[in-house]
């Protein structure tokens, strides 16, 4: 087959796949600017006068601001805690080479392999017993715990990419281990930290099940609010769902747009780095 034709065909297939994946997103974005009748009309209305009434309605509803704030605070604080712990753990795994490092790393990642449904009941019982259900510290710590394994994996790759000669230079130049950790190694794994932050932020931002089970009225985040409110008027409230979904999508899209370079580096676990 001619090379040019193959490339064209390849691009056409890519566009078709991309459009299929993007179609529901496109539909929800369009719906956010339609009236309820326009959303439900058959055949679908492709040409209409956009309205911001759905967004005005959204922000006049009680608690919507709280849900968005909950999502932002819980995910940001949880991921920041996870990053601090993960960076220290990744450094320790990278530098103090215990014989059991591989095994511990495997166990750490295996936490992420456990289906959420299998752990939700024990976590619920534990949270009730500890009195942590529907508390900010409880939700934040849970998400931090859930973000740590993957962050350790990403960051260990990055710390491995920083030659130990940097540490040694710092140490012989009179620096303490903490100086080496935060002034020498940390600046060099910044792309990894950004990548880990975004990966985990998106995960926590989208998480539904645990917030539904161990959260409550105080700590409800947007995904739970979306499902709860969507059906609470005896049918699907399409205008609410579409407008809240669009607002909900904005932070991750902005994060991915601005930090996509770091995400690509993060996906290679920092392995493209050289010796020094």
């Amino acid at each position, binding site marked *: 087959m001619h090379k040019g034709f193959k490339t064209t065909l390849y691009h056409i297939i890519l566009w078709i796949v991309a459009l299929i994946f993007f179609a529901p997103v496109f539909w929800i974005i369009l719906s956010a600017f339609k009236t309820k009748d326009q959303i439900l009309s058959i055949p679908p209305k492709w040409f209409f006068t956009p309205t911001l009434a759905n967004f005005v309605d959204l922000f006049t509803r009680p608690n919507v601001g709280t849900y968005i704030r909950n999502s932002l605070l819980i995910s940001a604080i949880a991921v920041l805690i996870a990053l601090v712990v993960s960076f220290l753990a990744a450094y320790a795994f990278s530098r103090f080479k215990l014989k059991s490092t591989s095994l511990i790393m495997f166990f750490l990642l295996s936490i992420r392999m456990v289906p959420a449904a299998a752990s939700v009941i024990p976590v619920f019982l534990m949270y009730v017993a500890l009195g942590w259900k529907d508390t900010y510290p409880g939700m934040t710590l849970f998400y931090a715990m859930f973000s740590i394994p993957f962050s350790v994996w990403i960051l260990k790759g990055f710390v491995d990419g920083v030659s130990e000669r940097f540490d040694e*230079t710092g140490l012989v*130049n009179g620096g303490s281990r903490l100086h080496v950790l935060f002034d020498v190694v940390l600046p060099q794994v910044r792309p990894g930290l950004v990548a880990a932050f975004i990966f985990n932020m998106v995960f926590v931002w989208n998480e539904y099940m645990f917030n539904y089970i161990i959260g409550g009225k105080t700590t409800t985040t947007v995904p739970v609010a979306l499902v709860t409110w969507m059906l609470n008027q005896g049918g699907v409230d399409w205008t609410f769902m579409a407008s809240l979904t669009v607002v909900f999508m904005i932070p991750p899209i902005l994060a991915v747009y601005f930090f996509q370079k770091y995400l690509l580096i993060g996906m290679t676990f920092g392995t493209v780095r050289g010796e020094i």
Partner: protein
Amino acid sequence: MSDIRIEKLRKEYGQTVAVNDVTITFPSGSVTCLLGPSGCGKTTLLRMIAGLEDVTSGEIYFGDQKVTDLAPSKRNIGMVFQYPVVYRGITVYENIELPLLQEKLSDQERRKRVMDVVETLGLQSSINKDITKLDNGTRQKVAVARTVARQPQIILFDEPITNVDVASKDQLKQALKDLTRMLKQTIVYVTHDQTEAMTLADQIALMKDGVVVQRDAPRSLYNQPNDVFGGWFLGNPGMNFFDLSAKTNGHGTEIQTGLFSRPLMIEGLEKDSNIKLGIRPEQVKVSGKKNDRMVQGTILRKSIVVGGQYLVTIKSCDQTFKAKVEPETGYALKDEVWFEIPLKDIIIFGPDGHRLDVKTSLA
């Protein structure tokens, strides 16, 4: 400033002994090169001095202070590694200044220290450049400058020129030479490159299999190696060695060999021993004309060595050896030549490979 005293220092990795009960003193204010082939334990020894490796046994003293168990950061040392360690994202100036920020110095004093080393190492034109834009040679200069600016009592260099491109190598070597002469600090410099060691060192400690086999001034080490290893390792190429048998008769102990015009007499040798005779290629005299001390040989091979000299392989009787000759001699392969091995330059080693203190003459 203080000297470095190493007492019976040992490092084992499982069954492997990397450093084998080494006892040595690195004098205060001088440059000592640890020279030896790869894997001889020189870097391990240096890293133990720096505190980057735990010792298996033995002690390390800086002056009167025992530092064996002291953390690297408490030893007041500086170290330059094989790979240029520089911090990305900051300028050359900031790289040099970084460790000084931890010390209680005024801004003026800090700037002065940075600028002094910048000037010494000729980094003025690079001072505000991003470190990633520089070649390896300049990066290594920055690493050296960062170490020197701290003014530690001891500076350790771990093969700092090895990973620098050829073009920058000589320049960096010269810069290091100027710097070491100026600093007058206690410097230990690890290298496997004898030229580097000969250029920079006040004394060389030659290592083999985890042991310091000889420590001497460069010229003494070259001319008077304590054992066969020193003769072989130093020089390009190393010494020629001849396995010979000495027999004792009524006239004394003598060696019958075709290498000399007459039998070689050795005074101070045990009866009937096997010895190794060593001579450096540049000390063998080669001529197209015969005299009474010369022996005939044939040129087998010929190649150019550094400095424009020719390295020729000569065969005489059943012995083959190397000699250096000037290009104008114009020898060709299979040419018949005359050679002399001067008695003042030969070294006699015993069967165990150690140099023997004997006198030689021709019968």
